[in-house]
């Protein structure tokens, strides 16, 4: 398969604009500027591109919600707050091929009529932020950003905004609050950002990988894009594989590659040839799969049918030596630490779960703890303000559903079954 998202990774000085242009970069932007914005929106709709940040919403449809009134300022925000544990796909693009993102954003901004765009990047990505700043400077000097881009009459400025280390700021409305200088906590919806987003103006928020798909869609056409992978979620996808595999890393493959294919073919199989125990298919919020589910295609709908989700495409592979209680604790501790504090069930519920898991893991479990965990999950799930609390519950529920006996063993025997 011809790579489009990771094509420049590994090439020397791939972040420099000369090399990007030499490899055919910015041709999509030049082509796009000759099209009508509406046509671009239609192309993206036709391509079937679904948001790569996790929710999988149709990108073209999202763009089409932006009001057409030219007197209203509009914004594009790129969500580069890649914080989901196990996820490092956006970082690959940002660090090595920043111009791909800049080009995708410039096209998207032209399509929705945004004169300004922001890249909200997590503060830990200091290197990537510098790369982006440099790329924006280069692109502006070459006339791909700034005033009257390539003589098209379209002007656009791009800014990098560094976050301060809160996972919640990857939630799109919390991200907007953070750019505006407020505390990063999610906003109520409606109004949706498409009508009232950044500074209460129409705003599109897209993930890095989503925007990185745009130049290829313009250049190769929506048909090329939609011909790849399953009909309902087509296109290339970056899977970031970590954990007990021989070759962890980034893999750009057609959407819908199966778990088995990914682990045993592309990643060279399990580390030390141990038995596979569980796979988290889409970042830590996604409920885990087990050996029974190895032939599940990794795409939005197939994983949803299995009760899990594609999420960010972060595949975490665990072998037989992994303690599921400890795994659940680590994941849950992450969520309770990152809970923003706004709503009751997430703020007070997730630390409670963590405390119970900590006890079970440390050999202080009590009879009834598993039932209490399940009951608390019921009380949190679907009642939180944003999906953070739901994510915590989904992860824990996945572990409890598939490995309930391990939890009970920990409680009964005050020690671990796996190690």
């Amino acid at each position, binding site marked *: 398969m011809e790579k489009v998202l990771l094509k420049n990774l590994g090439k020397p000085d791939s972040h420099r604009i000369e090399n990007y242009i030499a490899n055919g970069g910015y041709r999509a932007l030049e082509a796009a500027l000759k099209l009508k914005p509406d046509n671009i929106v239609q192309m993206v709709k036709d391509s079937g591109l679904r948001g790569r940040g996790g929710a999988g919403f149709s990108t073209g449809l999202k763009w089409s919600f932006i009001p057409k009134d030219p007197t209203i300022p509009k914004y594009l925000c790129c969500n580069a707050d890649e914080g989901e544990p196990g996820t490092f796909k956006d970082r690959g693009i940002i660090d090595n091929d920043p111009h791909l993102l800049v080009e995708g954003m410039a096209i998207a901004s032209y399509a929705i009529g945004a004169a300004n765009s922001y890249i909200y990047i997590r503060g830990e990505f200091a290197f990537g932020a510098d790369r982006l700043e440099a790329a924006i400077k280069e692109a502006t000097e070459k006339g791909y950003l700034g005033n009257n881009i390539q003589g098209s009459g379209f002007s656009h400025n791009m800014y990098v905004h560094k976050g301060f280390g809160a996972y919640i700021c990857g939630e799109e409305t919390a991200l907007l609050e953070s750019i505006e200088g407020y505390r990063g906590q999610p906003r*109520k919806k409606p109004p949706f950002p498409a009508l009232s987003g950044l500074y209460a103006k129409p705003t599109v928020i897209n993930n890095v990988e989503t925007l990185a798909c745009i130049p290829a869609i313009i250049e190769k056409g929506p048909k090329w894009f939609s011909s790849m992978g399953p009909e309902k979620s087509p296109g290339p996808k970056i899977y970031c594989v970590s954990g007990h595999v021989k070759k962890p890393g980034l893999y750009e493959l057609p959407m819908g590659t199966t778990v088995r294919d990914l682990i045993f073919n592309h990643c060279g199989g399990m580390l030390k040839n141990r038995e596979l125990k569980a796979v988290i298919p889409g970042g830590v919020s996604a409920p885990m799969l087990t050996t029974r589910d190895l032939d599940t295609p990794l795409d939005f709908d197939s994983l949803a049918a299995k009760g899990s989700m594609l999420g960010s495409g972060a595949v975490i592979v665990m072998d037989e030596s992994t303690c599921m209680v400890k795994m659940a604790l680590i994941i849950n501790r992450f969520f309770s630490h990152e809970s923003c*504090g706004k*709503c*009751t069930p997430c*703020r007070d519920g*997730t*630390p409670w779960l963590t405390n119970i898991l900590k006890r079970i893991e440390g050999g202080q479990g009590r009879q009834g703890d598993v039932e209490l965990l399940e009951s608390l999950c019921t009380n949190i799930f679907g009642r939180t303000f944003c999906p953070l609390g739901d994510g915590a519950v989904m992860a824990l529920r996945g572990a409890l559903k598939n490995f309930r006996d391990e939890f009970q063993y920990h409680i009964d025997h005050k020690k671990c079954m796996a190690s």
Partner: protein
Amino acid sequence: MHGVIIMATVKINGKEITVQDNTLILDAARDAGFEIPTFCYQADLMGIGSCRMCLVEIEGQKKLQPSCITPVLHGMSINTETPTVISARASMLEFLLANHALDCPVCDKGGECELQDMVYKYGPHKGRHAEKKFKFQEKDYALSPVIIKNSNRCVQCQKCVRVCAEVVGANVLGALGRGDHQEETSFFRHFLDCDQDGNCIEVCPVGCFMRLPYRYRTRPWDLKGADTVCPYCGTGCRMVIEHRDGVLIRSKAQLGVGLNSETLCARGRFGCDFASSTERLKTPLIRRGGSLEPASWEEALGYIKEHIPVNIGNKMGGIASPRLTNEELYLFQKLLRDIFGSPNLDSTARWEPEATEGFIKATGMDEGGVSVFDCMESDSVLVIGSHLSDENPVTDYIVRRIKNTRRMSLIIASPREMKLDSSATIKLRHSPGREAAVLDAIALAVNAGKPSPAEGAALKDAKIEDLIASAGVTKGAVEQIAQRLLAANSIAIIAGMEFLRHPEGIPELGLLKEALKSSGKKVLVMPALDRANQRGAWEMGVHPAFGPGYGPVKDKGLGCAGMLEAANRGDLDMMYIAGADVAAMHPDEEFTRKALLKLKLLVVQDIFLSETAKLAHVVLPGSSFAEKEGTFTNQEGRAQIIRKLLPPPGKAKRDLDVIRAVGEVYDPSFGPKMPVLVLDEIRNAAGMYAHVSLAFNNKRNTENKLDNRHALVQGSATSALSVTRFSAATTEPEGRFHLTTGNHLFHSGRFSRRSGTLLGLLSAAVVEISEKDAASLNLKSGDKVKVKGRHYEAILSLKTKKGSKEGVAFIAENYDDVPVNRFFKKGEPAPRVDITKVTY
């Protein structure tokens, strides 16, 4: 679509109801009679949907939805009482209790705590949380002299933060930390230098924000309360005052009641302890051999009878405080006019009677009441001549809150920076006392330089260039304001006390009003007054030029200044001063004392031994607002009931009884006896009050969300007021700063100085200048400085304000240690002062 109301029909628990589209599910359900519990919802704050207590089921939606931020959609079917909803409520409470301190036995909120009530009602009744609790801190910590905090009890509803930002505009609270470590407090828990209004305490549903002065003093069920009106400024906030064992220990606001709803300012919430001060006068006093000695009522009244002949006429004068009730003020003017036959009456020591008369006419008070909510419905609101944020804090809250929720412009013209500036569309910094020039310039700009017929000859020769130079403003700013006013269909002007300090602006206020009206605008004018019943005092006829209801009087008498001058000349022998501290408040202290000392008889009725009372021959102990019934008329013209909580201390009497007792000395039938009967007489004498309804509780209603116009006074049919044109005041040539005075945020006149709590907030007076002036003088906030005028100098600490007009110094008139009236001299230009650093 503008103006068209779209309705939506929805089913709530099977009951079909039709409400306005966009109504919140919560409001619709409550209207339909279904109870939904909430913590974070408050009608006047923006919804955040965070506590999740109000989750409801909407048919067709998988997840429960927060009813406090979800509007109804036509055809929705909503269930608020299903097993899922009920269990969700219980589970939210279980989560809230997980880390809650559960120290109810030592919590001040115990007994009136919303968390207690909710858990009692919605469960869970069994605790499952058996983990170590997270504690923010071991000990409560004070955030200010009036606010103490225990974060372990917090339910994270953020109402404190939101009321501070959205309503008060102080923005001094926020959240520290994240997740279950999130703590709503001051930034980095620093001691707060804020408005100290305690609205954060009032909105707190639990014992997290608490009143420091009230701490550990009582249980709420041991309190007895009275629903009354705040005695401080003219806003007229409704509040409940409460006592235990005869000591007034708390005043609080009530959600959805009064125009203030849950809000009060520092004065109202913490300043009512003056009523229980040990310095209260408890017995009549008579001057014997140079000193005031305790006496019986018989002796005191006998002394008065002996010295004041009936029908003394012109030789007598009366001043009654605008803090007395309408009933007392009415009876007071009746005593002066009918018993003593004297036309010399006034309700203030601060202003000229011609100025007050003109101000009443220019602001249209004689045309009836104007609701502040109606003003805020206007397209454009101009605040001028008022330091609203300090003088009428709760009016400031109302203006800010409504401004933030609708499309309108707010224009503020003031020499000094104020909190409300941050909500202003345009703020204009003009030279002090130049309201007249500002208004003329705006009027000229509104008519593009050509005076309209309404402005007549007044502006014929005026040039905008001269006016802006005199006002110290830019032409651009004035034109911007004019543009805003021209773009508006309806305009409200809120005009404050500066017009009385500088009365040359009064006719111009009327001119601008007419100019706007003649260009087809709907114009409302509301005065912003700094005394609780100032408007009532005028409407009861405590004024030398008009009687009750602004009706004409046979002979016009003298106002306060006139009386003092007459006394000084020997033309006035006796004065009866009820509640007013003339010696402290009248400009030119030295002259005032001299004049008062020349009186053959000075009767002072007060609750404290004021500066004036110290000069009296007879002192009659009266009552505070907490010890009597009656009505106050606020600045809007809204008549509201005040109620009795306590008996007057010692031998003191209700003021109505004191005035009546003096009257009965001369006419045994003088009365009526009961406040309600006096009110009946007022309704007859002043047509404005004939139809005023006191059954006003300001509960939300469908007609006009938070208002009730039946409480507003009507227009006067007998009004015979005229506007006097004052020549422009001059200022001294020497001195860098123009000295201005007014009320401090924590004080109102002098009697708030009797509140121990308010004294603790800021114990000494400060002088306020602009940051720029301070920088050029090499001074900074907190420095000790000498303020030197021609007649007086004082050592004060300095406070700088960022956006104030340069060359203006402000000293509050409330501090006994810095009697600002000593800077002023009768018949001399307005004082200028120099400020220098004091080094020890």
